């Protein structure tokens, strides 16, 4: 069990993390999701020991490792740009963590070579051990970085934007494969991403961060269906936001609803002036402005229904929506 308790970190005047509490259970796959500057990478680096918190503790299996250096924490870390050793072969890269062990803990040369070979087979790069990193594709380098991190049999695997530098197709394949590997090896992993799709697809639990605080922790289903704050509702998945009711005082409550949580009705709905319509998967994506207030709204209509034309007015009614208080702390589902 990895536990982060009340961790705070400042860089000069900038508060990167404010009182972060987080638990990672054994075998879990956790995503730290947030926009850039939200503190997600800082949190990952503090767990690894690459950065040190100003206050609070990091506990590994109940043991406080806050003051322990990165080399003694025994975590695998996969860097955003892989950080492979360019002058070493792929096999030497993978074996590095074993060859730097103290002599009495170090396996024999043959055992290290066999282990490197085994790991390369695991990441489906067998036979490429003699190559240099410069001779590999981006996806292959990524897998070398992963094999290198796994070689030390880490108690925790940390990945910083693991798919950030790859093109869409490779990213998708690698994502599925990593998910499999995580299950198969019984790893405990935490990865950082700004891509909500990636977080929702891969993670057992998603930690949504913004401005140095955790907005919500939950399963992908909970995060998507029951966002706890307006930020989560807006950042994860597509959301329409319209003010609720007439203005009362300065601040107004907001109604949030997903494009697909809307139905077209014959009467009693809000009038939507259709501006643009295109096909999005199994639905018509309709973009338009509300007749009342002129707010831009996007909705999805099943393709079985007639396609609305630009210039028409349709009546819509959200079937599921959430109201958030103007005060962002007090959210109502």
């Amino acid at each position, binding site marked *: 069990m990895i536990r982060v308790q009340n961790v705070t970190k400042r860089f000069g005047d900038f508060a990167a993390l404010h009182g972060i509490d987080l638990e990672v259970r054994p075998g879990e796959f956790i995503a730290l999701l947030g926009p850039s500057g939200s503190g997600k990478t800082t949190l990952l680096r503090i767990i690894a020991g690459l950065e040190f918190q100003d206050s609070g503790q990091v506990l590994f299996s109940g043991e406080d490792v806050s003051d322990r250096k*990165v*080399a003694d924490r025994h975590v695998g870390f996969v860097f955003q740009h892989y*950080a492979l050793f360019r002058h070493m072969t792929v096999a030497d890269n993978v074996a590095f963590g074993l060859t730097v062990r103290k002599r009495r803990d170090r396996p024999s040369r043959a055992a290290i070579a066999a282990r490197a070979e085994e790991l390369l087979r695991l990441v489906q790069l067998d036979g490429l051990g003699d190559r240099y990193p410069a001779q590999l594709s981006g996806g292959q380098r990524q897998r070398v970085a992963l094999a290198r991190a796994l070689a030390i049999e880490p108690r925790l695997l940390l990945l910083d934007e693991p798919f950030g530098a790859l093109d869409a197709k490779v990213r998708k394949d690698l994502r599925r494969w990593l998910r499999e590997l995580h299950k198969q090896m019984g790893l405990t992993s935490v990865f950082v991403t700004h891509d909500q799709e990636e977080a929702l697809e891969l993670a057992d639990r998603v930690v949504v961060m913004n401005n140095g605080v955790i907005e919500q922790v939950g399963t992908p289903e909970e995060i998507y269906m029951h966002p706890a704050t307006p930020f989560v509702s807006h950042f994860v998945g597509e959301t329409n936001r319209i003010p609720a009711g007439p203005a009362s005082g300065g601040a107004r409550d907001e109604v949030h609803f997903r494009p697909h949580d809307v139905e077209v009705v014959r009467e009693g709905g809000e009038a939507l002036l259709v501006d643009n319509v295109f096909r999005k998967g199994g639905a018509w994506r309709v973009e338009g402005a509300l007749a009342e207030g002129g707010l831009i709204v996007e909705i999805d209509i099943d393709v079985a229904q007639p396609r609305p034309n630009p210039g028409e007015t349709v009546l819509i009614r959200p079937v599921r929506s959430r109201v958030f208080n103007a005060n962002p702390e007090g959210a109502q589902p």
Partner: protein
Amino acid sequence: MSRTLSRAKSWRQPSVLPGFGLTFGVTLAWLTLIVLVPLASIFIRSAGMGWSEFVAVGFSDRALAAYRVSFGTAAAAGLVNAVSGLLVAWVLVRYAFPGKRVISALVDLPFALPTAVAGIALTALYAPTGWLGQFLEPLGLKVAFTPVGIVVALVFIGLPFVVRSVEPVLADLGRDVEEAAATLGATRLQTFRRVIVPAIAPALLTGFALAFARGVGEYGSVIFIAGNMPGKTEIAPLLIVTQLEQYAYAGATAIATVMMLASFLILLVINLIQAASRRRMGA
């Protein structure tokens, strides 16, 4: 015919900029004019004196001692610079501090300073009565007028070469590689020895080669501090000048020819080592 064409193509990489023939021709003509012709004239001059006379002058005891002093001190200074220059480059790349630009400009100063000025300044410092010399003398350390003095002068002259060669490579290396080594359990020393040094070795070797080559040819700063005792602290360039002053042009070119060949061989070997290590890294 077609075979020669395809072979010619194999080492001509396609480029968006045309004109391989033109640029290659200009390169060769330029190198010939600037480098080859003057060097060839040295060969031709020394070739006029006959083999036995060439050996007698070019490999005299005094000349051999001068080569030893020149190459030995240049190599020692190159090594000192490889270590200290790496340190300076490291500090300039990795840390932000007030006055960084001033320090960076200071590094280049030995390039610009007339070497005689450096020689006089160093001699004044290290002479037995000088600012530093007076403290070193009682400790039994003689710097001025010994080979150590020559090394000091050459270290001064050669520092910028190492710093400027290593700096861009170090900047490019990135901190994440060091961090990766640390997460894998490497100690600081292991990270330095196994990750950083191999990555910057080609650049370090370049810096060393440049500093060494400059040291072998250096004249202005050395003659003041060296004392110029034949067989002990007399450098080969000085021996050449001495020959010239006696109007022994053939003798001067003989010594120059030997130095040139030796320097060329050493630099060639260094270049080959670099090419091999560059190829490995796929750069």
